[in-house]
C-alpha cells in the first residue's frame, strides 16, 4: 500500500518507477529514482505548491529541457509558468531577478553553469547583494540552477566548476547535491528559500539511480541548506567532498576498508554557508583530512576547508597536514585519455589517503 502511495505521488515518472521497482531489491516503500527525475519531481511539486514559482531558461519548455530535467513540465503547466527564452543569458537572468524583486519565485536555468558567466553580474550584483544594500528591504527569492563541472568529452569551455566562484560571494547560498536524495531535498529547500540560491547539478549524475525512502518522497521533504551529511562513518581519516566526487570517495573508502583503513566520508551538500562544524567534528575524531573536488585547486573549495581547519580547534587534532585532491590545473582537454587524467580518480584519492596516513 505504501508502495502504491509513493507510486501515485511520484506522478510523471510513475511508469519508470514501477518498472524499476520490479527489478530492484529495495525495501518496501522505497523507490529507485535517478537524479534527473528527482529534480523533475521536486520542481513539479514546488510548481504545484506555490503559484508564484515558475521556470525559465533555454529549451526548458517545448524541448523538455536540454538534459530533460524539465520533461513534462510545460505540458502540465503551460507557457505562463514554463518559459523558453532566447539565447540571451544576461537578459533572461536579469529578467528572472527582476521578477523575484516583484514577488515571484523564479527558477532560472542555465543550460550549463559555463554560460552563467555571461550573466554573472546579474547573479552577483543584482541578486546576491541586493538584500544587504537595501538593508533588508528587498528580498530576492530566486534559484539559479543547471549542470556544473566536468561532463564527458565536452572540452574546455563546457567543463568548468563554479563552486569556488559563487561560493566566494556573501549573500548567495550555493548548493551542490550529490545523489537523488540531495537533489530532491535541496532543490525543494532552495525554491522555498527567500534568498538567491545557486544550485550546482552534475550532468553525469543525472542518469544515476538512488534509493529514496517513503519519507524522502513526501511532498514536504526538504534538506536544510548549510548542513553537511556524513555518508559513511569512519575512524582513521576524513574525506570531505561535494557533488559527483562524493561517490568516488565512497568507492575509495570501500577499497581502503579492505586494507583496514576506515574513511569517514562527509558530503558537503552546501558550499555556502559551509558546514564547518560537521567537518571539524569529523577531523577531531579522525585526526586526518583529505578534501576531494572536481574543480581547479587554486583558490578552490578544498583550499577554503583547509584554511578553516587551520584556523579552528580541529588543527590541534591533526596528525598530518590536510591535503586536497582536485581537478588538474589545466583547461579541460578533449581526448579521452587526457580528459580521464584531468579529473580526480579513485586511485588519486586512495593514493592521497595513504600518503597522509604515511602508509
Amino acid at each position: 500500500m505504501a508502495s502504491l502511495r509513493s507510486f501515485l505521488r511520484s506522478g510523471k515518472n510513475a511508469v519508470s518507477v514501477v518498472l524499476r521497482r520490479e527489478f530492484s531489491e529495495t525495501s518496501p516503500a522505497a523507490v529507485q529514482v535517478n537524479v534527473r527525475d528527482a529534480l523533475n519531481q521536486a520542481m513539479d511539486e514546488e510548481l504545484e505548491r506555490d503559484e508564484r514559482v515558475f521556470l525559465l531558461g533555454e529549451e526548458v519548455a517545448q524541448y523538455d529541457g536540454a538534459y530533460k530535467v524539465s520533461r513534462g513540465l510545460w505540458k502540465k503547466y503551460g507557457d505562463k509558468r514554463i518559459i523558453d527564452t532566447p539565447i540571451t543569458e544576461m537578459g533572461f537572468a536579469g529578467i528572472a531577478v527582476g521578477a523575484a524583486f516583484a514577488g515571484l519565485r523564479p527558477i532560472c536555468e542555465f543550460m550549463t553553469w559555463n554560460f552563467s558567466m555571461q550573466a554573472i553580474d546579474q547573479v552577483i550584483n543584482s541578486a546576491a547583494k541586493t538584500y544587504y544594500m537595501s538593508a533588508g528591504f528587498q528580498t530576492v527569492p530566486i534559484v539559479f540552477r543547471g549542470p556544473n563541472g566536468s561532463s564527458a568529452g565536452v572540452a574546455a569551455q563546457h567543463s568548468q566548476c563554479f563552486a569556488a566562484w559563487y561560493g566566494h560571494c556573501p549573500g548567495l547560498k550555493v548548493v551542490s547535491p550529490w545523489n537523488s536524495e540531495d537533489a530532491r531535498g535541496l532543490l525543494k529547500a532552495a525554491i522555498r528559500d527567500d534568498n538567491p540560491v545557486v544550485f550546482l547539478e552534475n550532468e553525469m549524475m543525472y542518469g544515476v539511480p538512488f534509493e529514496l525512502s517513503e519519507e524522502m518522497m513526501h511532498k514536504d521533504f526538504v534538506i536544510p541548506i548549510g548542513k553537511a551529511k556524513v555518508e559513511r562513518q569512519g575512524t582513521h581519516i576524513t574525506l570531505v567532498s561535494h557533488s559527483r566526487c562524493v561517490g568516488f570517495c565512497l568507492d575509495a573508502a570501500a577499497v581502503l576498508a579492505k586494507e583496514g583503513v576506515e574513511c569517514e566520508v562527509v558530503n558537503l551538500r552546501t558550499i555556502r554557508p559551509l558546514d564547518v562544524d560537521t567537518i571539524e567534528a569529523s577531523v577531531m575524531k579522525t585526526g586526518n583530512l583529505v578534501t576531494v573536488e572536481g574543480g581547479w585547486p587554486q583558490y578552490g573549495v578544498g583550499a577554503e576547508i583547509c584554511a578553516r581547519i587551520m584556523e579552528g580547534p580541529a588543527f590541534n587534532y591533526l596528525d598530518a597536514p590536510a591535503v586536497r585532491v582536485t581537478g588538474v590545473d589545466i583547461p579541460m582537454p578533449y581526448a579521452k585519455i587526457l580528459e580521464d587524467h584531468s579529473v580526480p580518480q579513485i586511485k588519486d584519492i586512495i593514493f592521497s589517503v595513504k600518503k597522509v596516513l604515511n602508509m
Partner: protein
Amino acid sequence: MGSGRLPKTIVCEHRTSLHPQMHVKTIPCKEKNIYEQDPDILPPSGAHLRWTEGGQVVSEAASVVVSSRSYADFTPEATFDIKKVDLHRLEEGPPLTSTLTREDGLKYYRTMQTIRRMELKADQLYKQKIIRGFCHLYDGQEACAVGIEGGITLSDHLITAYRAHGYTLTRGGTVREIMAELTGRREGIAKGKGGSMHMYTKNFYGGNGIVGAQVPLGAGVALACKYLGTDQLCVSLYGDGAANQGQIFETYNMASLWKLPIIFICENNQYGMGTSVERASASTEYYKRGDFIPGLRVDGMDVLCVREATKFAADHCRSGKGPILMELQTYRYHGHSMSDPGVSYRTREEIQEVRSKSDPISMLKDRMLSNNMASVEELKEIDIEVRKEIEDAAQFATTDPEPPLDDLCSHIYANEKSFEVRGATPWTKLTSHS
C-alpha cells in the same frame, strides 16, 4: 529667466543648439512686472513670511501685507501647447496640448524645486566631505522624474540607474531619509548600507550601480505584473551611455516577444560620463534603437511633455500592446558625478545656455505666472519652504549617528536565524541578523 527685470511682453525661447528640434514659443505676458524681484533672493533674515487664510502673505516682522491675492483669483487650469513628439513605428503620438491644473502645477513646481535644492545641498555636503564615494546629481533633469510620475501611479513600478536621488523622492522617499543615506547614517533610507546608488522604496527597485543591468531587471518586474494579472506596468530607465549595452537589446527582444508591460525610457542628457553621444553611438536616435519597439522622442525639459508622453506610453502598455520606448532629451548641469567638474568635455557656455533657455523649473514657473495660475509670492513661499525642508534634512543627515557596528553583518540573508560571520581575523566572530 529670473535674473532681474524683464519687459512686459516676454518671449520665452526654449531653444538650445543641442536640441534643434525645439521651436521658439511665445507666451503673451498678461501681467506687468511678473518678476518683482529676483526669486532666488531670500527675505531679509529675521523676517518670517506666513500665509493668512485669505491668501495674504504677511511678514510678521514688519506686519506689512506683502500682497493681497486670494485663491479665487487664480486660474484653476490652463491648456498649453506642447512640443510635437517624434514618432517611430507609431501612427499617432501624445496630444499636442496639455491641460495643467493649478494644483498639479504647484505640486510639480514644489517637487522639482525640492529635487533641485536637494541635489545642490548634496553638492555642498560632498565638497565638505560629509558625503563620500559616488554622488551623481540630477539637477537639470527634474522634469523627467516629475513628469514620468505624473503619467503613472505609485502602484506602477520603476527602476533606474545610479542618478537616482530624484526618483527616490518621486517614488515616495523623503528628503530626510535620502540625505541621511547619502551621509551614511542609521536613519538613511537603506540604513546607511547602500549609499547614493542603492536606495529603495515600495515599487522602486533602485538605484543600480552597474550600467544597463537595471533594464532586464525592469523587464522582470514587468513580467511579474503580467504574470500576477495586475494592470500595473514597469518604467525602466537608462541613459544615452547605457543605450548601447547588449543586455538592453536582449531585453527589447524578450519584452517584445512576451508583450511585457514595460516602458523603456532613455534619459538622453547628451553625455555618457565624458563621452558625447556622437562619439559613443553609431545612431543617436535612441528612440529608434528598439527597432521593432515603437518609440517617441520627447522634450525632457518640459514636465508637461514628459507627462503626456508617459500617459500615452502607459496606455499603450496597459492595453496589452507590449513594450514602448521613450527618449527624453534632457541635460544635467553637474558633471557625471561629483568627481567630474563637467567642463572638460563641454563648454560652460553650453551649460549656461541650457540653464537660461531650457530650465525645467523656470519653464513651469513662466507658464503658471503668465497664466495667472499662481503668484510670485506663492512660488517664493514654496521656495522658502523647500529650502527649509532641505536645511532641516541636511542638519539631520549630519547629526544622525552612523549605523551601529552590530549592523555590519546584518541583512545578508532574509528570514534566516542568526548565524556567525567571519570577521577580518579568525578570532573576530560577528553575528548576522536577518
